[in-house]
């Protein structure tokens, strides 16, 4: 029987990144993926003949540059096309456009508010500085502040020294970002509703919180991390869809000798005497390794694959209370023609960027109000891209694909999700969007609606949470996913976690996978 040093459960982008780093360090690695292809939620698929979609996650923004570099992802086929603008259509046929070109952007902002145009650069610089202050933490295994272990104490002191080294002003600015609501934070800077709405939207992505709830300013910063390297607004689209990200990482892992098995669902992690010894597949096949790494989320890993019997009670309690509450859905459309937004009807560069349905903070807050009480937002927030405008190979010639990220569609829907409710969600999205682009309804050839329940069923993310657990302060850094277990280790010896349910959390970032690999290798980042 073939043996391995490390078995990785789940071939999502973090599992693959972890595999690539371990294989690169000479370990014999096996990745087991339940589905017929790797990628998890970073996956491309020809859903309708000729139309390819990034079915779930759809932009590349947070992928750590060191991963792109160290794993040579460009050589393995990753090609990122920049998304250069954000268009926010407004009700009165007006719009707010944010452009990559600085002067053009400033002129457009000044059209809405001269003051906002003035403040915009300073705001950008501040968030840039904050993101830079937080950036080193992304590749750190968070030490346990209550620990007595000398190694962790040293890490704690290093962390303390790092923060003490930051200017006091920056520390206070960071504290504000951690504790404020996106709405309050933006109110301090801007006055234009459309700008505040669109900016605060990045504070609510992936969480069941409204822009007026404290804690959302941090999610806003989290999404600014991607705007760091290279160009200021470095959100991009992976050529071929987000599956290309996973494919490139998989290729890097394989080039270093890692083995990847698809259609190999793991049903159980084998534990003997408090140690992980391998895994059992659905068919009963046993595979052994001294190290098992789970890319699945904490609930599936510990309550599903490992089982409570092997775990301490307080740890089980922590995992049980860890919050998912998925709130995001996705609508993928195959289109016969491009949408014509009444505010900007001609095809143009705005269709190669993001289109955001976020006319005001109030609009988003009302969308949240519905979801808070278990209903689909009557008028949801949407983040839209047209991948075929960036990569024509995504659709047949002359035709297009549209990717619509939707919030809020609560996992815990009153009455539960059903086919009818899924279609209701699809209709709500199309109806709302048609108000801004009336030709849309007639242009739709096919429609795919993915609810949080679908995300859970298809990809295995509990409650459909795209971050493997809400990115709230009480579930971050040394509390992610459970106090004292934030360093990728688990109470089971030899069992590690590498999913985005660990620090630093979600987005197609890869940091969790890389950090976990370094923790297994006993190295600091």
């Amino acid at each position, binding site marked *: 029987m073939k043996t391995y040093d490390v078995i990785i459960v789940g071939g999502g982008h973090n599992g693959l990144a972890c595999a690539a780093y371990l294989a690169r360090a000479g370990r014999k690695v096996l990745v087991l993926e339940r589905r017929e292809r790797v990628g998890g939620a970073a996956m491309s698929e020809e859903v309708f003949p000729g139309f390819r979609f990034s079915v779930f996650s759809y932009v590349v923004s947070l992928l750590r540059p060191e991963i792109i570099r160290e794993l040579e992802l460009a050589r393995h086929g990753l090609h990122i096309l920049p998304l250069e603008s954000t268009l926010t259509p407004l009700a009165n046929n007006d719009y707010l456009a944010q452009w990559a070109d600085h002067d053009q952007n400033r002129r457009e902002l000044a059209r809405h508010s001269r003051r906002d145009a003035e403040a915009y650069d300073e705001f950008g610089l501040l968030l840039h500085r904050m993101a830079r202050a937080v950036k080193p933490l992304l590749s750190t295994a968070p030490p346990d502040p209550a620990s007595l272990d000398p190694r962790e104490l040293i890490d704690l002191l290093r962390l303390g020294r790092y923060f003490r080294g930051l200017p006091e002003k920056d520390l206070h600015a960071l504290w504000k970002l951690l*504790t404020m609501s996106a709405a309050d934070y933006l109110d301090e800077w801007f006055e234009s509703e459309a700008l505040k709405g669109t900016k605060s939207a990045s504070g609510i992505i992936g969480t069941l919180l409204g822009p007026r*709830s404290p804690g959302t300013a941090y999610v806003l910063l989290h999404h600014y991390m991607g705007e760091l390297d290279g160009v200021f607004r470095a959100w991009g689209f992976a050529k071929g869809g987000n599956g290309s990200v996973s494919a490139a990482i998989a290729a890097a892992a394989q080039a270093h000798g890692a083995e990847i098995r698809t259609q190999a669902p793991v049903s159980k992690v084998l534990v003997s005497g408090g140690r992980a010894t391998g895994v059992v597949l659905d068919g009963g096949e046993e595979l052994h390794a001294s190290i098992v790494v789970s890319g699945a989320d904490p609930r599936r890993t510990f309550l599903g694959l490992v089982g409570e019997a092997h775990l301490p009670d307080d740890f089980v309690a922590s995992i049980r209370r860890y919050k998912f509450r998925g709130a995001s859905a996705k609508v993928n459309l195959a289109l016969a023609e491009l949408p014509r937004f009444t505010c900007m009807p001609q095809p143009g560069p705005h269709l190669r960027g993001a289109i955001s349905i976020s006319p005001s903070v109030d609009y988003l807050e009302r969308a949240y109000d519905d979801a808070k009480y278990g209903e689909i937002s009557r008028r949801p927030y949407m983040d839209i891209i047209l991948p075929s405008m960036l990569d024509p190979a995504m659709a047949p010639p002359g035709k297009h694909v549209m990717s619509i990220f939707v919030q809020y569609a609560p996992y815990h829907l009153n009455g539960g999700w059903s086919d009818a409710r899924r279609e209701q969600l699809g209709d709500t999205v199309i109806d709302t969007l048609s108000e801004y682009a009336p030709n849309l309804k007639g242009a739709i050839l096919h429609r795919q609606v993915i609810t949080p329940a679908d995300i859970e069923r298809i990809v295995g993310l509990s409650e459909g949470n795209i971050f493997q657990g809400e990115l709230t302060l009480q579930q971050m850094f040394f509390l992610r996913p459970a106090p004292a277990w934030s360093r990728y280790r688990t109470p089971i010896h030899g069992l590690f976690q590498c999913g985005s349910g660990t620090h630093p959390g979600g987005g197609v970032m890869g940091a969790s996978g890389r950090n976990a690999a370094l923790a297994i290798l006993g190295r600091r980042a």
Partner: protein
Amino acid sequence: MTEVVVIGADANGLVTAELLRRAGHSVTLLQEEAPRGRTVGWAPPEVANALELSGLELYCPDPWLRAPLGDGGMFELWRDMARSVESIRRLDARDAERWPRFCERMATLARLLERIYVEPPPSLVDLRFAFRLRRLGRQGMEDLMRLLPMPVAELLDEWFQSDVLKGALGAHAVRHVMQGPRSAGTAFRLLHYHAGSPPGVFRTPSSNLAGLLRARSTITVRQAKTARIAVRNGEVTGVVLEGGEELRASLVVSAVDPRRTLTELTEPGWLDPDLVRALRHVRSRGVAVKLAITFERPPDWTTLTLAPSLDYVERAYDDAKHGRVSAQPWLDLLAEGKVAEVHFQYVPHQQAGDANIGALATKLLAPHAPAITECKLARLPAAWPEGQPHQAELALDQALWMRPLPELSGYRTPVDGLWLCGQAMHPAVSGVGGYNCARAILRNT
């Protein structure tokens, strides 16, 4: 001996004035309006000792919380843990079992706050503060880190099942803040209101602190409205009263909110424009009104809370969030004899004069209280900017080292000799901000 003027004769102003006088300064205490009633806030022993107070009385009703049940019964929480447990058992046996443990865990954290509150706020990277946190032990530290940023609804959902229990506790945590129980950072407020009380009591007591000090012959309060604070060459020189009289002083301490103190009473030209901008952004939104009601006959209780579930309170907040008076507000009554004071939340400050508020409260109270013969809106104290008693809303981004702004958190202002001692200052407990401020002044002069 320094000439000192203290602006504002609420508990904070009185404590500051008295401590400075005892240190040998000559103090003039100005008040715009006579404060009424008891001082809301616990009086820490440190403060009482420094003032050599005798006859200090703390008042908190017992049961401290009383909420009607759907079936006509009453749910009560007492100072006596066993009695509370019995009352909770009627709602939910599992909740009753968990109550003592919950109270113990919260009390551990509240004790930490009590220690932090009688000192100037720690700095964010204070090593002493870090060691103090570690002394809480693993459980305490984990609780603190998790709990501070949490929505109070999430905390209560983790522990309890009963809507009645969770609704009432959640309501008390969001008292006087423009947030609902599902907003992050509200669990911290449950601790804030718990500080100074025995385990299991999550209601701030009131005291006769201000009354005792006002009764002292050593303190004279002058009825006068401050027109401006005089500054020359970046140094305070005195206070000009409305009418033109100037009181010369080399030390001026203001219990008035920082925005008014620094941008209205002081010529803002003395300040860094960034600070002025930051002061404008200090959130101080009022969210509640007080009603004075008279019953036909005295009720057989002293307190009543109408907040039947977390969703009820959250929906009340939704209205306020969108600028309306809550259609179903949460109410909290403190009764003495035939009269009662009603805390009515939420009312956005712009709506505070809404004529329908009294009728709404009367309707909501009808099933639970004796007939109401009179109900009128009580005027909010002038010292509450926009109707906010904490002057600066007590939220995590305006607490501790951030209160009310990092630049002002040491009670000192950029104007030499001008200090702040009001509710907007750490720890937002009446009298304690004054105590911390006076001590900071005495250390620095």
